[in-house]
């Protein structure tokens, strides 16, 4: 799958940078599509580097956390590095409440994340 309907994926210095197209990640259909597409981005290669950019996301349901967990586990198994950036404060609270801000590698913006990948 090289064309994604819900994601903008670009390659920057060996890192797959993924930007979510939808501003509201709420309904089940969208989550199913995102699962398929995100897992396709991770793919089957060893040690992938992936950055999830949340700058477009205004609202996110808690089910999305489960999906991020799935992606996180797959990346871990493949010895890859997963980072997330540009998460708005309103959404970040749910990451804090669930301690996932300590589990996931989250930076303020893409610039910081790319530096951390080097």
């Amino acid at each position, binding site marked *: 799958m090289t064309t994604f309907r819900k994601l903008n994926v670009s390659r920057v210095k060996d890192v797959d940078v993924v930007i979510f197209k939808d501003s509201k990640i709420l309904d*089940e259909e969208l989550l199913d599509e995102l*699962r398929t597409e995100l897992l396709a981005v991770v793919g089957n290669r060893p040690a992938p580097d992936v950055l999830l950019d949340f700058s477009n996301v205004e*609202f996110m349901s*808690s*089910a999305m*956390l*489960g*999906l991020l*967990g*799935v992606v996180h*586990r*797959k990346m871990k198994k493949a010895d890859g590095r997963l980072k997330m950036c540009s998460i708005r404060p309103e959404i970040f609270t749910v990451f*804090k*409440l*669930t*301690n*996932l801000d300590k*589990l996931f590698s989250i930076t303020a913006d893409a610039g910081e994340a790319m530096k951390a990948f080097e």
Partner: protein
Amino acid sequence: MNAVDIVVAEDSRIQARMLQKVLVDAGHSVRLAEHGGVALEMVRERRPDVIISDIEMPEMDGYTFCKAVKSDPELRSVPLILLSTLSDPVDIIRGLDAGADNYVTKPYDPGYLLARMGDLLATPLELDSAGAATLDVTLAGQTFQVKAGRQQVLNLLVSTFENAVTKNQELVVANRDLSLARDELQRSNQELTTLNEKISRINKQMTRDLEAAARVQQSLLPDDEVKVPQVELAWRYVPCQSLAGDFLNVFQLDAEHLGLYVVDVSGHGVPSSLMAVTVGRFLSPKVSDSSLLVRPDGNGGSKLATPSEVAFQLNELFQADEFSGLYFTMLYGVLHVPSGRLRYVSAGHTPLAQVSADGTATLHEMAGFPVGFVPDVEFDEDALTLSPGDRLYLYSDGVPEAMNAEREQFGDEAMKDVLSKGQGTALDGTVASLLSAVETWCVPNGPLDDVSILGLEWGGPG
């Protein structure tokens, strides 16, 4: 038929070229004219063997062209075929009046056209223009005066009749095809009706199954048998679809302890509710080897697992897999009833709400991983001691995150406000008014997530 020279008058380039091809393929030579005026010049310049003319053309139409040809002594013996759509019967009269020898209707079969041409060439035309009678012909209430020779009339009639017969045959075939199509359609319609009935039956069955499952889920909720003297309990459980991903329970663990929890599985509907029920079975107060809450202590007695231990064990059991991605948040507490001391663990759950007797509402924030996210993790525990008259509320995020029509959240402040105000009234009434406030907030679409609220009031050491 020998090769002949034909002049074709046709304003449509495509149709002219098509006709030219038909005639050239049959061995003839063709001169094309884009309207009657050009055609007239061509036939005067060099007399053709046959003329074929369209009727609707700019500058000079087919009838005018035909009249001009037929009134020219040099040219009138040349057979002239008119191509027409013949949509109006008056066209025949006009054709006769113009002196045309034959009609071929469009769209035409090339073979038919060539055959008509051949017939015309085989039989020399009767040129009795001088003795031709003027006939009165009445059609559609109008009378026409037509000057036409007998052969001309016969030729025209024959070609018109042949056309009509061919068209009629085509109609018969089309009609038969239509009949077949209609039968096909009827059969399909019947199939469709049968399928619809089947779908309706299956749908009803599914609805019954869902309702039965919902009843099972409801039956697992706390029963009213939990009667502890110093403790007042109340709860509300409102799935947003028939099955809920939320679960709540409160029960006696032993003579002095009460256990209570709210579990919120991610998502909702069938998979989440299956998970919720399964989790609920593990969080049962019945002493057994599989119970996470109360284990045999080896001396014939039992001991309570601490909330932290419970969360840890659950987490090991329920690691989310790649396919379901389901995880759950949980707030589990153990209350020592004589002292009012509560130990509790929050696995990524909404904060515990405590409302003191004077109405002050406090949210106890505690960060923790949800259950099922990361294996082998310690869950922090917290503790608080209640004062007499204090109330505790456990709830799912369907309460603070309930959204109104403008997609604004109900919020922690609004929740605390309802709980504070309810402090002087009965516990059950306060729980009910919180639910009611959420439901009012969510008008007209209703809550999009399950709503669970569990309230407890501690009367004191007794």
